[in-house]
């Protein structure tokens, strides 16, 4: 089959690879119908997460049709159209029982790497390096989905593939930020990052009753999407003083909930960006936490900061003083897909969560490298490149 593979830092290539096989009784094999370039893939592409091998198949946000099911699969049949949680969960361990599905104890087949890095291993993820299990990703004609009864969900007929595919990661991640960030009716919520995850976090905050939702970015075309498709307020951080604006828009209190949807390659104006770049390139810090710093500084006393962006290791100049002295709750997580996806598919089918506009570039998988170039360099108004295998 054809697959879009990592060939080295900033090198991608579509090559022929073996078809995936059923390896456990709970697996299904999907014929991939849509698979999306995610911002977190850029950290793999750029070599910031070094646990990649030449030939690894990328992709963790996808939708497909079941073409084969293992003997233990009871909830899916050949021919079903399903969306799949990007993180793999067994559904039976203590963490899954607490709905902390991305912390699953039994799905990372290389647990020692992340145990050494972080103390404990999260669950496995599709197409996201050997640190998270080395599972082949979805940028391919076919993909193996372990524990399919837990992580794959039938897609309502009302949704097109291009709409539904985002539930696999972006919509669920964004919803989790608002939910676990504890957005309450009447809140003022600020979201850093107007990519797909940031947009979905903003929409979730609105649906959870926030009175005012402000999305921060520097790309005009993304901020326009936020205004047109979600109805949120926007701020361009290159044009205004973000801290002052957020105080202005929250009666001087600061946002009740701040959601960071940027990650370890954050950009910022001014010398701070250069400082973080140099330290990251010298490996004196692994991640650039610019938006996290801003969010912590902006949050109201006793407020909440939720970190959705992907961070891998260590950061510098973390404003711990603000966290302690303002009494903040700071929380992060990888996406607990099965906790949210069924509910989100219903909301999407009812038209509550618009996603079609995120698919700015729908391309055949053979054009995967071009899609990532458009996406990474924000060319041609790209918000997400969606690939169609076999097209």
């Amino acid at each position, binding site marked *: 089959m054809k*697959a879009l*593979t990592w060939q080295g830092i900033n090198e991608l290539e579509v090559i022929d*690879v*073996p078809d*995936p*096989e059923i*390896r*456990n*009784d*709970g697996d299904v094999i999907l014929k991939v119908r849509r698979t999306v370039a995610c911002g977190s893939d850029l950290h793999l592409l750029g070599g910031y997460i070094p*646990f*990649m*091998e*030449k*030939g*690894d*198949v990328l992709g963790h946000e996808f939708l497909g049709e079941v073409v084969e099911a293992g003997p*233990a699969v009871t909830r899916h049949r050949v021919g079903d159209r399903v969306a799949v949680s990007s993180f793999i969960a*067994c*559904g*039976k*361990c*203590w963490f899954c*029982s607490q709905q902390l599905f991305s912390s699953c*104890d*039994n*799905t990372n*087949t*290389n*647990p*020692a*790497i992340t*145990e*050494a890095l972080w*103390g*404990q*291993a999260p669950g*496995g993820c599709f197409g996201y390096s*050997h640190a998270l*299990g*080395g*599972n*082949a990703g979805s940028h391919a004609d076919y993909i*193996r989905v*372990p*524990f399919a009864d837990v992580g794959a969900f039938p897609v309502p007929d009302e949704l097109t593939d291009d709409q539904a595919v985002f539930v696999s990661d972006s919509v669920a991640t964004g919803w989790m930020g608002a939910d676990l960030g504890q957005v309450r009716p009447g809140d003022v919520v600020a979201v850093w990052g107007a990519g797909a995850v940031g947009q979905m976090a903003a929409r979730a905050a609105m649906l959870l009753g926030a009175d005012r939702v402000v999305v921060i970015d520097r790309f005009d075309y993304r901020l326009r999407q936020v205004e047109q498709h979600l109805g949120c307020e926007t701020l361009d951080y290159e044009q205004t003083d973000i801290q002052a604006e957020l105080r202005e828009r929250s009666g001087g209190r600061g946002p009740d909930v701040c959601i960071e949807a940027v990650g370890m390659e954050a950009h910022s104006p001014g010398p701070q960006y250069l400082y973080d770049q140099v330290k990251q390139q010298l490996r004196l810090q692994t991640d650039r936490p610019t938006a996290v710093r801003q969010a912590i500084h902006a949050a109201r006393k006793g407020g909440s900061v939720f970190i959705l962006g992907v961070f891998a290791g260590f950061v510098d100049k973390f404003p711990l003083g603000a966290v302690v002295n303002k009494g903040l709750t700071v929380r992060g997580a990888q996406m607990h897909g099965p906790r949210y996806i069924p509910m989100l598919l219903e909301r999407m089918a009812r038209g509550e969560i618009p996603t079609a506009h995120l698919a700015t570039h729908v391309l055949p998988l053979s054009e995967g490298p071009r899609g990532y170039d458009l996406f990474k360099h924000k060319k041609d108004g790209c918000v997400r490149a969606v690939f169609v295998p076999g097209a």
Partner: protein
Amino acid sequence: MTVAVPPDRVAPGGALPERLAAFGDRIEVQVRPAPGDRGTEIAARLRGPVPSGAAEVVARASGDDPRQELRTALRDTRSLLETGDVLRPSGPPTTRPTPTNAWLRLLTSRARGEGTL
């Protein structure tokens, strides 16, 4: 290690799970209820000497350290008790050995036997 099943399922009648029982007298095992209804705590320790110093480095690199065997058995035990299965990695592989990925392949080949478990 904690498994999310009650003690009477971990060691019915005092019989250890198969993967741990296979160690025989080579390990000492304690099984006790976990607090807060979290299932069962299993503690396992190798009896007798284990490689240390330079010998440990060689044993761990070659995959011959008995602690690796025990950690793998513990991980398998937890997964079998909780899910009835042990997840296998994706396959067939889409990568092949190269000089640049040799370090990562060594790491992943030992990844169930190493770690903080």
